[in-house]
Every structure is written in C-alpha cells, then in structure tokens.
C-alpha cells in the first residue's frame, strides 16, 4: 500500500490518546484494527495527517458479564466474540456474524469498537447491536457518556462519537428468560459486504409468547436500520407462520436499499424478506432450546 504521508503516534493510555485527539483535531484519525481505515488510506480516499494507534493502550479489550450486562471492550477483536463460550450461551449470534465478517485475518485484528465507530451501514455488527438493543460508552476529555444504539448512527460514516471522543465499551443487556438470536447475510463471496443481512433477537415467556423482538438490517439503508414494524409484528404472538411472514414482509417494505452490482432494489427487498424469515425461525428454534 502506498498512502499519503502521515504521522503516527501510539499512546499508552486512554487519557494520552484523548489529549492527542483534542490537540490534533480533525487532522487525526483513530487506528483500532485498521481494516476499514487502512484500505481507504491505500486508495487515498482517506488521507489523515496523523494516526493515533489505540493498540498499545491496556484495558480496552475484554469480554465480561457484569450487572446483567455483557460488556465488550472497544478493542476486542472480532475473533474473540466468535470463539467465546461464555458469550455463546446467550448470544450465539456473535458466532453467526463473526464468521461472515471478511476472513480470519481480518477477524483476528478487526475490532468490535471499530466496526461500530466506522459508521458504515454495510458493516455487520451494527445490525446485531440494534437487534440486541446495545448501548455504547464514549469517552472524552470531559468524562464518559453512554448512548443507546438507536441514537448512535447518524449517517454515512457518521456516528454519535464526536470530535475528540473515543468509543470505549459496548454494553448488551443479558436476557433473563428464554431467548434466541441469529444473523445471516447474503454475500456474493466470502469477505464481501452484505447484499442484505438480518440480525434477529427474540425473548419468549414460559408459554412461548414473544415478549421482546429486535431486528436489525445490514446494508439496505443509509444507516443501519431497525425493522420497527417487523419487531411489533412478532411481540405478543406465538411466532406462528403468519406473524413471521408479516414481519418478513414489513422488513422488505421498510428497508431502503440502493441498486448496485449486488442487485437491484427488488432483489434486495426479496433477500431481506427471505433472510428475515429464515433468521426469525432460527432465533425461535434457539429460544426453544434454551
């Protein structure tokens, strides 16, 4: 790769990183796993003057269950959620999604924090976080704040992480009852961005009635999209064939895909409908096994 020239700093603490970020302003970019930023620098779509590398900062990579929450450090690599037995108990969806993110080399280095903070609706984790109703901790020189996932994605490459701030942690509520979740995307080949992807999280009561439903869609909207009507179509039902068909239909109607080499709008809506149905069924099966 032959990028434009840039300066590089690898601070050893979060405070130091935040100070640097504050001082350098928008000439600086944060380097986490680098698997979105570096390809852009290679093509010179991104030409930051400074890179602030977070990889030497201790304490930003962890998976822990605490206070009814799964907490994921921003620098946690994709591979760690893919392989964690602890995470898989409640969230088999992470193994689903990680396996579909690029290739093993990318997953060994790409981070969950970077995946979200990049603000790309084509990334897979945003839809998962929407389905799981996550929240995100953001640190600045003035302290830390928490933002719900529905308020996180602003637009193309734009998120609630403001200038001078760094995403530090992802928090996911752990379901108390029966639950199941699943993710799939249709991709042209391994490593491709999704033609369309669907994340589904379901919680059921003892009678098998759906109490909570979260559905996130990948790459069919300028921002990662919550399928609100689809979720509503499931809650209160026994997840019967009709309810699932309605939810799938709503998802296909409510997304806003654009036509590209992956397919036209009709095709993408078709994919969203088909995959939503498949993923609701898969999440439901997993919930009934719990």
């Amino acid at each position: 790769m032959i990028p434009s020239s840039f300066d590089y700093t690898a601070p050893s603490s979060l405070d130091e990183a935040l100070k640097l970020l504050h001082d350098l302003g928008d000439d600086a970019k944060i380097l986490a796993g680098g698997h979105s930023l570096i390809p852009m620098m290679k093509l010179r779509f991104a030409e930051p003057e400074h890179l602030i590398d977070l990889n030497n900062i201790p304490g930003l990579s962890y998976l822990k269950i605490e206070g009814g929450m799964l907490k994921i450090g921003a620098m946690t690599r994709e591979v760690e959620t893919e392989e964690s037995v602890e995470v898989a108990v409640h969230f088999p969806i992470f193994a689903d999604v990680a396996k579909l993110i690029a290739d093993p080399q990318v997953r060994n280095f790409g981070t969950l924090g970077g995946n979200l903070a990049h603000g790309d609706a084509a990334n897979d984790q945003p839809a998962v976080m929407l389905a799981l109703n996550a929240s995100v901790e953001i640190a600045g020189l003035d302290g830390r704040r928490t933002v719900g996932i529905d308020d996180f994605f602003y637009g193309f490459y734009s998120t609630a992480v403001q200038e001078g701030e760094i995403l530090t942690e992802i928090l996911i509520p752990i379901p108390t009852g029966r639950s199941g979740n699943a993710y799939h995307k249709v991709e042209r080949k391994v490593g491709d961005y999704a033609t369309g992807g669907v994340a589904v999280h379901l919680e059921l009561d003892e009678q098998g009635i759906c109490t909570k439903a979260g559905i996130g869609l990948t790459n069919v909207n300028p921002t990662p999209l919550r399928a609100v009507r689809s979720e509503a179509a499931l809650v209160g039902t026994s997840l019967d064939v009709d309810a699932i068909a309605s939810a799938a239909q709503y998802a296909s109607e409510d997304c806003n895909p654009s036509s590209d080499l992956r397919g036209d709008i009709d095709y993408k809506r078709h994919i969203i409908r088909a995959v939503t149905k498949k993923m609701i069924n898969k999440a439901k099966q997993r919930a009934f096994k719990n």
Partner: protein
Amino acid sequence: MIQCKTSKEISGMGHSMKRKEDDRFIHGKGNYTDDVKLPGTLYMDIVRSPYAYAKIKNIDSSEALKIPGVLAVVTGKDLEQYNLHWMPTLMSDTQMVLPVDTVMYQAQEVAAVIATEKYIARDAREAVKVEYEVMKPVVDPFKSLDADAPILRTDKPDKKDNHIWHWEVGQKEETEKIFQEAEVTVKEQMHIPRIHVASIETCGCVASYDKVDNHLTMYMTTQAPHAIRTVFALVAGHVGLTEEKIRVISPDIGGGFGGKVPVYPGYVIAIAASFLIGKPVKWIEDRSENLQADSFARDYHITAELAGTKDGKILATRMKVLADHGYTDASANPSKFPTGMFSIGTGSYDYPNAFMEADAVYTNKPPGGVAYRCSFRVTEAVHAIERITDRFALEIGKDPAALRFQNFIKKEQFPYHSPTGWEYDSGDYEAGLKLAMKGVDYDNLRIEQAEKRKKGELMGIGLSTFTEIVGAGPSKDFDILGIKMFDSAEIRVHPTGKAIARFGTKSQGQGHETTYAQIIAEELGIPAKDIQIEEGDTDTAPYGLGTYASRSTPTAGAAAVMAARKLRDKAKKIAAYLLEVSEDDLEWEPGKFSVKGAPEKSKTIQEIIFASYTNHPQGMEAGFEATHYYDPPNLTFPSGAYICVVDIDSDTFEIKVRRFVAIDDAGHIINPMIAQGQVHGGLTQGIAPAMYEELIYDDDGNILNGTLMDYLVPTAVESPSWETGHTVTPSPHHPIGAKGIGESPTVGAPPAIANAIVDALKPYGITHLDIPITPYKIFKALKEKGVLDKNIVES
C-alpha cells in the same frame, strides 16, 4: 494406478515426488521481480486516464517535478521523439506505449513519473495534471459497427470502421442445408464474459540499462522471456538496443495464466526511462492497475446452434462469434489463428459438419484476449459446445449423459479428423464419462433430484465432456511474429553425474523444476533430485517460446526426452567401450547398461558419465551434453469428463456446489501429485467465471469493478472439495505419451457448473443463463418467467 519404470530413488515418470521448488517458496525465499534490488534503483509510477475515450489537451508536470525526489515525467510526446510511442502487438496490430493525443480506455497509461522512492512517485502521480476533452466512447461491441459509431483507430489512415478481421472455418453450405432440413434445431446466444487472470503477483519489471556497455538487463514478469527479448529488439533496435545487448531475466513468477505473455506499455516505458537516465528503473503495478489495465481474457459473444435428429443424433453445429478486443488486437494467439483454437468447438462429438465464423471489433476497452489458462480460445469453444449440447438434450427430452454417449467420437475412430480441420491424436471419451458417472453415482443423483423437484427444491446435475487442444505447435502452422513455436531443452551433465538442464519455457507455478527433472530421470536414470532445472534467463537458456497454452510438456518436455535420448545413445557407446562389448550386446534399465546374459557386467550411468570426461573413446566428443529443439508433429488433445452437482436455496438462490467430480485424461502423467494440484487450481479458476468473475463496464466505459472488493475472485471458502481421477490415453506422437494438464480444468469446469445450474432451474422453463451465474441473475430470470412469489418463495 500408475506404473513406474524407475525406483523412488530415481523418481522418473509417475512418482509423486515433492516439488523441488517448494522449499524455496515455503521458506519465503522465492525471488520475484519486486525482490530484485539493484543499487541506485529509481521507481516508476503511471498516471492513468480516468476516461475511456478522450483527447489529451495538456499534461502539466510542473507541480509533480517540484516534489523533491522526482526526476522526470515521461509523456507520449517524449517517446515520440525516439519513435517509441507505439509498439506492435503479438497479432501484428499496434498499441500505444504512451498516447500523444488520445486515450482509448479507462486506466490507460498517460504519463510515467520517475522518482527516487515509490512513495514519492505515487505522490507525484497525483500531482500531474492532465486536461482532457472527453468523447463518447464505443463500449457495446454490437454497436461498434453501427454507421454512426465513431471510428476509433484514426491512427490507421485506411480504417473506415471498427472491424478488425473476419474468420471462418468449416462447411458453410452443407451446414446450412442440414439446419434447413433437420428435425430439431436449437440456438442460444451466449456471452463468455471478459475476465482477468488476477494472478497473485501483479506485473512489473526492473529495467537496468548500462550506458557504458550499452547493455540492458530486464528483470520482468514474463512467461516468454526469449520471445519478449526479440520483441524488444524489434521495438528498440533502431535506438541501438539490438538483441545481443538485451538480457531478459524472468525470476520466480507468482502466477501467469496467460496474463504475463503480452508486452505491457509499463515495461517499455521503464526501459525508455532507464535508457535515458542510465539507472535501474523499477515498475510494479498495484492490484487495481493490474485488474483495470492489463490484458483481459475471453469476451466472446457467441451464437451457438445445433441441428440433430429427434432421437439424439447430432448432425451439425454452427457458431457465430463477435469478439470484443478493446482498442487494439493484442490477443496472444499464434499468428495464423486470430480466434486461436476456437475451431475445436465440435468438441468430443462426431460431427459430420460444422461451420464457425468470427468477427472482431474495436471498442474503448483495454486490449487483450490473452489465453487465460486456456490454449487460445478453447474455453470459449468448449463452453459453447457443452452448453448447446445440453440445450439439445433438453429440447428432445433425453438425458445429457445418454446423449453424449450416443454422439462421442469412438475410441477406434482416432486419429480423428474433425470437420474444422484438426486431427485428434487419441481419446477414450466413453471411459472417462463412465468413470465420472460411477464416481458421482449419477443414477441415484437423478432419483434424488426427481424427489427434490416434487418438493420444490432446486438441485441440478451438470456434465461437461470436453476435448482440449494444446501444445502449440507444429512449425508448419504455428508461429508468433514469425518465430516457429518449437521449444527447447539443453542438458549438461557434470563429471560426477549431477546435471543442470535449461529450457526455453518458464514456470509460473507449474512445477517445472520437478517435472522436467523427472522426465530426464526417466530417460537417463539420473535421480531427479540430482538434476537442477533452470529457465527464464535469455543469456543462458536455449531459445524457446515460453510457457502458456499447456505447451511446456508437449514441446519442451518432449525436447528434454529427445536430448536425454541423444545422451543415452552416447552413454551406450561409452558403455560398450568400457565393457568391451558391442552396443548390440547391451541392455538398458533405468540407471545402467548391462551385458545381455551377464547382468553382473554393467556400468551405471554415473560411471559412464564420469568416463565421458575422463576415459571417453578416442574419436568421440568429450563431455555429456545435449540440446534439442522439438518441433511437435501435431498438437495434443487432452480430454475430461466433469460432473457437477449444485443445490440452490429456493429463497435466496444462493448456489452451493455440493460435488464436483473431475476425470481428466492427459495421457501419461509425469507427477500425479503435481497434476492433481494443477487440476485443483484449474477447477477453482473454472468456478470463477462460472459463478463470480466478470469485468463490468458502464455506458461511459467506466469499469465498475476495478478492485478485488468487487471483482470477485473465489477463495477456498467458495471451492468445493474437488474429487479428481483420471484415465490414461497416451498421445501416440509425443515421445512419452504426455498431453498437458494445466488448462483442462479451467476449460472444462465452467460449462459443467452452468449446465448444473440450468438443470436445477429446468422446471421453470429456463434454458440458458450466461456466466457468471449469480443468485441475483437467477432471481431476475425467475422473475422474468413469472414464477417468483408463486412456486418458490412461499414454498
């Protein structure tokens, strides 16, 4: 199983000897062009056109030249002073090195920056400002001959349209008559898409011109170093670079597949820059440049037709091709064959008559037409015949396997004369297909398919029983720029019995360092591990035409046999002298001559070789060396029977290749492990165009998938677990009965996959889909048939 005549110690033919070159590669000690580091090297980067067709109004280099470390910006006007701005293509057309006034395709070279570092060169590339006047390009080849289409090659004063050439072969009138009278005729329009070899290593060079000695050493990624040296001498001889002053070295190559046969402008610009500055100039393409600007492959629009009887006898085929060559005909074909070996298009079937014709046109796209792992347009021909054969089976309601058995050229018909003029050397097509059907359990698959169809599930079975034509070629018909397509081997055996052998070919991963050594081991009984193989240096290796078109084993491999046999004849004379018997009293077993009836009286090949330097008969030339230039009497005709099974998701139309059984017949096999590896790689490059790869251009000539993010090269994940096997039908004219294996799988796999997918969709009235067949394409086809939302989605 393959019978070996030699011991494992000798490892001649048939031994799965581990590849000698792999030690180097797996230790990271390969030496590729970009690894060549000469003192004082300068770096070149290329400014490329953002437009497909435009006039160059002005090139402003001033800002670039201000960047510290930038030495020069070379333009077409600079080269024009030395008459180096155009160069010939292999098909005797002309191609710009750098444009003086007009760019003809997006990503075409416009200017070259020379700097002390590659990073500086890239910065300077961005700083060169070019002013263009954009013109409406010709993108669609079907419109290139329209009366209102702009004439692209205004550099050719006599050119009044965009037509390049017309070609035809076969029995035109007879074929037409058969089609008029036939009980059944079928016809499909097919596009064999424009694809790219996308080898792991991109192209590049280090041009090192020594001003004092007036000598150029050119390290470069080329599959044909000797021919390239001759081309350079023809291009640059007038400025003093005559052929004896040019040394081309082709170091390790990370995949060629035909894409490293052409002379790209970058090579010539680097030579010009080194010539003018007097320092080494390195140019290494990046991935996007490689994909967007280097020669494409395929891009044939074919109308394929077949006439036959209701009960399945095929009578004639007719094929009409429109070939999109981009702005110049830079195909890599033998000179007399503008469509390469496309006339192999009657395939493995006994056609009484056939007629094929082609027209080539200019468009505003990159030039090319390289033989991507394919012996010159064979892939296109095989796809057409295998698809239209299945189409015919569908039309008359006959099983495609039964139809093939009915029409195969029979074993006893060889040598077989095809209606398009070829003499097939040997083949046993029935045996191959029977083995493949047994391997895949064909009959049970058809039962399973019938059951699945009742449930609305999409499962398909596809066959491809192809004949390849490789090993170009006999000198009476085959040349490139007038140079006959022989190839060469030179064997030098040292006094201690170890050898070095050099060849006119050039391995790019094929394993020549092992297989050539095994051929010589077979003939001389010297252990293959004791034979060092060298290729790619024009100062040391004998002249040859290089490695492509599966020609290395048929030509240079045969040359090695002939040279080794000359040495064995000499060895026999020496053995007779040493053993004090007549030559007629000697018998040979690999590695030694012994006296008939007295096996204890013998001389090993090593003893004989030592004697050739220390105790040779008076009057005999000393030493143990031989050279042979092999002119093949005919081409070789490998064949294969491939069966592919696919499952298609009935909701998302995602395609899974469940099984792929490939039975190849390449005659005698030199190294079964290497042959199998070749088949695995080739099959993967077969699923590539069948399901993934196509270079796509919009109406303005912009490439829409010019990076590997969108040009979809399949990986291990997309590859099924290949099931391979072989039958052995030796070539009667090749000295060791070998035919060549490297390209068969790439040629034979795409129609097997396409046939399987179309077969899966048969219940919905789909008779043909162009490759690459993607889930999106299936969706569109089903939507067009009006079957979506009814039969499939709600099932």
